[in-house]
């Protein structure tokens, strides 16, 4: 069935978006990973009018300013293969000076009807669709919830046959039109496509175009499909959305057929023609590549700087952090405080994909990368906390009852007349930021049901090997997750740990620490060649990335023997926090001055409490000494990896298929929100209106907006994020890396199509080899250090 296959392909061309309560970064080009940037540029221009690179002026400025050199441009030009590329450097440079033509998205019938009638039909569809979808998917804002019986199409149909708005605006008979369309969504899809007489070859990009007009809603539907498939289920929300959107098209076609028949035939023809990049798309891609080469050049220089001499002997403290770029600043600061401190980088869920139940909560929270279906179930607190759990629930339920009293009809009047004046106090309190939101501090999390010893030991071994931490343990090893403690921010979860599913990372850190302190597990590990000294204590903590304060969960593992170590660790962490704040304050507007960062984290009016991962440009998997002390400026994901102790390169495979993919999602989300803020950005925070507890719209309503808000990538005067596709640098034999790429087609596509750049580091941590695609590598000229011959990484 060609029609349904096309609908399926269009559905998969749309990236998913997670609800805001636990949002994670998503690669907006997820559905296009098998294509290169130029061709995706052509595709997204047709289906959304979205650019995939910056405006020419941005590159021109960087060429003029010397950031992008002629060598970068030449190298990018040389690596371009498209026949439409400029013939030489000067042709490329003059193309960079010219503004590019933008054909814009292929018009929909709604667009054509709008042009013919002067009525903004596309806007009205967005408004009506958004109003319906927000009600249907509402997670609990409206006390009178929309009926949920049947699927989305059924529900929409029930609403659309009652809603008089389209008729009032000028589409008379819309409700009757809808009621005549078949009641089953797949039949409806066939009926309307048949009515519009669209040839099969035009369907894919036309369907993709229609889904893009639904903005974040299509992405939310794609998320439901993602989640269903992760659990081996199915979900048809997105094709039902497509059907709904097509019904609008058909109704408008009926109404305006006489006026728009000819232009519509032309649009159909344009959808039939294959997606091919224009010369402009090719130039854009080369310029983007050149700007990435410029960044890689500076990264190579940074990495080529002489490494500090590693101190021998047992470290004073080991502290493992998430690979998140924000950890880099803090880790560097901590190592500055005491050079005997060793820090490590590892994915912030600490290798434990858990489905967690908070204290006094029925809700299961997947605290793991969204690529995984969490296999372990955990909960905060046990039998001994049951009474407290119960009374916490009563408190929460009473609070909820009070909230409903406040918001219900009739009772809201009583509420205002009885309790309104107490808000004077709350206004003062919030205006002055008197209350700091407390760091998460539930009772100790535990596996529920408990894991048997073999499983626990295996999990511990896997994690330690993946961290390349199998020997030389310090007396105190901190496992530190991260979260952001901000107030009044709908996008708060996007500041939390992406590897923990958009939650803060303390639960996973506490679980792993308990696992590794377990004497039975330690005894079992010895048999696997990992001997943890008896005086080593693992200790969990949480790094608040907004204030750089670290909370240690000291009651988890009381140990009088380590009291001294803990006191010292606390002092070092506090000192490191101060240094890290000092560095970060320079980037944040109005950030200067001790205490400012802490104040702004509790300011309810602050739209830029921190920069999160803005600026990220590199992913480095290597032993820490390769990167220690180097000015990576909070722009690199750092994963500890020692290939020499990696048997069969299993850890390498894990890194390339999991953390690298997660990092690519983050990097490309920033990229997409920067180059195409209208399509892949969440818009203006000043206008955000939270819908259904799951997303935001700008202003009154309309389409849900997914991606990063404008204020998260721009400080008002300049971009804070430089749109660069991530440079992945791995210290490992090239053959081993090639082997992993051969086995994982999806990962290979990311590199072959340059959604990621790949480099092999040599043993001095220098970028020695560039992956050129098709499993080939080219040696990099060590321009930064001509005296040293390039050393092979193998």
């Amino acid at each position, binding site marked *: 069935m060609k029609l349904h296959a096309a609908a399926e392909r269009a559905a998969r061309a749309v990236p998913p978006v997670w609800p805001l309560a636990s949002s994670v970064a998503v690669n907006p080009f997820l559905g296009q990973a098998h294509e290169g940037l130029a061709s995706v540029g052509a595709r997204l221009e047709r289906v959304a009018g979205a650019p995939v690179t910056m405006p020419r002026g941005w590159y021109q400025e960087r060429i003029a300013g010397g950031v992008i050199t002629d060598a970068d441009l030449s190298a990018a030009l040389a690596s371009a293969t498209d026949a439409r590329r400029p013939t030489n450097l000067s042709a490329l440079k003059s193309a960079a000076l010219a503004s590019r033509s933008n054909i814009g998205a292929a018009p929909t019938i709604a667009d054509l009807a709008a042009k013919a009638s002067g009525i903004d039909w596309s806007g009205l569809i967005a408004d009506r669709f958004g109003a319906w979808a927000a009600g249907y998917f509402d997670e609990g804002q409206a006390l009178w919830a929309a009926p949920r019986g049947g699927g989305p199409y059924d529900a929409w149909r029930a609403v659309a046959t009652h809603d008089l708005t389209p008729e009032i605006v000028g589409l008379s008979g819309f409700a009757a039109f809808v009621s005549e369309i078949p009641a089953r969504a797949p039949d409806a899809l066939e009926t309307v496509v048949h009515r519009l007489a669209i040839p099969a070859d035009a369907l894919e990009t036309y369907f993709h175009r229609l889904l893009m007009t639904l903005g974040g809603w299509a992405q939310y539907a794609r998320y439901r499909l993602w989640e269903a498939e992760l659990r081996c289920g199915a979900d048809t929300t997105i094709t039902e959305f497509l059907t709904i959107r097509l019904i609008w098209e058909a109704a408008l076609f009926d109404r305006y057929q006489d006026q728009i028949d000819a232009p519509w035939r032309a649009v159909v023809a344009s959808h039939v023609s294959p997606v091919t990049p224009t010369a402009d798309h090719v130039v854009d891609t080369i310029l983007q590549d050149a700007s990435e080469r410029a960044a890689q050049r500076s990264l190579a220089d940074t990495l080529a700087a002489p490494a500090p001499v590693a101190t021998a002997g047992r470290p004073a403290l080991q502290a493992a952090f998430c690979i998140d770029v924000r950890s880099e600043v803090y880790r560097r600061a901590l190592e500055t405080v005491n050079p005997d401190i060793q820090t490590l980088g590892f994915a912030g869920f600490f290798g434990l994909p858990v489905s967690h139940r908070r204290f006094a909560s029925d809700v299961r929270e997947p605290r793991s990368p969204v690529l995984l279906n969490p296999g372990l179930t955990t909960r905060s607190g046990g039998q001994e906390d049951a009474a407290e759990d119960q009374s916490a629930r009563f408190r929460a*339920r009473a609070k909820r009852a009070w909230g409903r009293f406040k918001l219900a009809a009739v009772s809201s009047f009583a509420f205002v007349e009885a309790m309104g004046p107490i808000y004077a106090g709350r206004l003062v309190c919030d205006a002055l930021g008197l209350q700091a939101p407390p760091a998460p501090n539930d009772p100790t999390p535990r596996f529920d049901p408990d894991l048997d010893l073999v499983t626990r030991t295996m999990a511990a071994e896997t994690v330690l090997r993946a961290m390349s931490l199998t020997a030389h343990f310090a007396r105190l090893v901190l496992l530190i997750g991260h979260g952001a403690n901000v*107030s009044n921010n709908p996008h708060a979860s996007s500041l939390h740990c992406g590897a923990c599913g958009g939650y803060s990372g303390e639960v996973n850190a506490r679980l792993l620490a308990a696992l590794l302190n377990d004497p039975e597990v330690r005894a079992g590990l010895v048999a696997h060649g990992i001997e943890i000294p008896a005086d080593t204590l693992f200790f969990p903590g949480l790094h608040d990335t907004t204030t750089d304060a670290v909370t240690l969960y000291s009651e988890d593992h009381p140990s009088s023997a380590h009291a001294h170590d803990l006191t010292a660790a606390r002092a070092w962490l506090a000192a490191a926090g101060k240094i890290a704040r000092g560095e970060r304050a320079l980037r944040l507007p109005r950030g200067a001055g001790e205490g400012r960062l802490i104040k702004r984290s509790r300011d309810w009016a602050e739209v830029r409490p921190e920069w999160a991962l803005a600026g990220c440009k590199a992913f480095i998997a290597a032993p820490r000494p390769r990167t220690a002390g180097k000015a990576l400026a909070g722009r690199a994901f750092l994963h500890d990896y020692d290939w020499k102790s990696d048997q069969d390169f299993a850890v390498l495979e894990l890194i390339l298929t999991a953390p690298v993919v997660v990092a690519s999602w983050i990097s490309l989300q920033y990229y997409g929100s920067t180059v195409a803020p209208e399509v892949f950005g969440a818009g203006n925070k000043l206008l955000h209106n939270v819908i259904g507890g799951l997303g935001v719209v700008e202003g009154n309503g309309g389409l849900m907006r997914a991606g990063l808000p404008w204020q998260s990538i721009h400080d008002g005067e300049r971009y804070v994020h430089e749109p660069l596709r991530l440079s992945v640098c791995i210290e490992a034999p090239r053959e081993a890396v090639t082997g992993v790429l051969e086995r994982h087609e999806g990962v290979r596509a990311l590199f072959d199509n340059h959604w990621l750049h790949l480099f092999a580091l040599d043993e001095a941590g220098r970028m020695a080899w560039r992956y050129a695609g098709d499993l080939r590598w080219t040696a990099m000229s060590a321009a930064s250090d001509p005296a040293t011959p390039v050393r092979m990484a193998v």
Partner: protein
Amino acid sequence: MPIELLPFVAPVTLLVSAAAGFLSHGPRPRLLARLSEASALIAIAVAVISAVVLVLGGRHLTRLFGLHGVGVSIELDTVSVVMLLLISFIGWVVVRYAATYLDGEARQGAFTGWLCMTLASVLLLVLSGNLVQLVLAWVATSLFLHRLLLFYPDRSAARRAAAKKFVTARVGDVALIAAVTLLALAYGSIDIAAILSAARSGRGGFLAVGAGGFLAMAALLKSAQFPSHGWLTEVMETPTPVSALLHAGVINAGGFLLIRFADVMLLAPGVLAVLVMIGGFTALFAGLVMLTQPAVKTSLAWSTVAQMGFMILECGLALFPLALLHIVAHSLYKAHSFLASGGAVDLIAANRRPGPVAIPRAGAVGRAFILALAIYVVVGLGFGIQHKSPQAVVLGAILIFGVAYLIAQGLGDDAPRALAQRTVVYAIATSVGYFTLQMFAAWLTAGVLPAVPAPGPLQWALMVLAVISFGLVAVLQALFPLWASHPAAAGLRVHLSNGFYVNALLDRLLHGWRLRNAT
């Protein structure tokens, strides 16, 4: 400077900040944030000192500063001082919030300018000692706010909403001008204090009745009462602090007008009856629409429409002190709700954690109503309810209905006893708060606002109607899950959630959906 001129300092300092705002260009105007907050703090200080002056010196009116009998003057009494305190406090919160919130916006200076201008004109409005000043401040507030609503002029939704607001506001302006013209003719003065004392002695005749009618019309339009409610529910197209200022400051102008001219309004009982009907209907209608709204700010906007309806209802019942209390209480609550609306994601997630909401059955709802009535009677007797006007006692029914909804949630089959106990404690606290605030409002405005007249047959009929309809909605709401899935309810929900299409009709009239480049 004579102390009586002091209140003028508040608007004037804000105007200075506004000028500084308009003069600054580009993002991050240096010092403007501090200057605007300082002027807002000065306004609060002025309000506090004015309150002290009022307590020590009593109600007074300044002489007119101007030419040919036209100019500015201040009527300093409880009503204006309460409003002065409220507006300056909300103003400070909003200005402070905006200074951080808009950091980095290219037009922060202009925004601050219009914000301070709007605040200054609201202050001049509530201080008005004469009719001309009242009208000018009224119109100016609306025009300055219009600039804030169009802070992002390229947004078509913003233009659509602002157009509706603009038309409604101009009709309201005409009504107000008609009202003050009739007042001036009826009393031969533009001095508000003189008009009020004349009206209190029963003078004014049919001209005063007509003035009351136009005042009511202006107030209804300004308070977004049905069917002119549409504009208020769509003005979230501008940064959040504007919504806070609008819903907590500007929207009160309608209620203020009725309270200010309470003595005149009492001369027109027919007009008051209309206010009861429109206000009561709007309160119920908008309250129901609010229940269907999935967007937090939109839900808050409908809540404002409902709350204004309730306030108008109180005015219609001649419970002016309660209306003033309602304005203050609602403003504080709504300003906070808008400014903190970014927390909706966390709030909804937190609400889901303790499991499903226990659904009360009909029997439990019945018990909750009886319990609420008992609490009302016991607490009310403690506060001397037997000495209150029938209107105030009847209005207390609203408290019973509200409190019953709260208690009913603790009486659901799945609700544990501990939850029931907590909701009853909350219910008692609410009742105590309710009566305490009512006593306070009555004490504060004694002698300034007219006493409630004895209800006539029409008033009695309206009160019974109000109690029945509010009670019906309250019962239906408590039994919600039992009927909400009925197909007829689903259809009604669609029409309700669209606010009965008033906005769609107005958009059609004003060509709101016209393509911009096609016009």
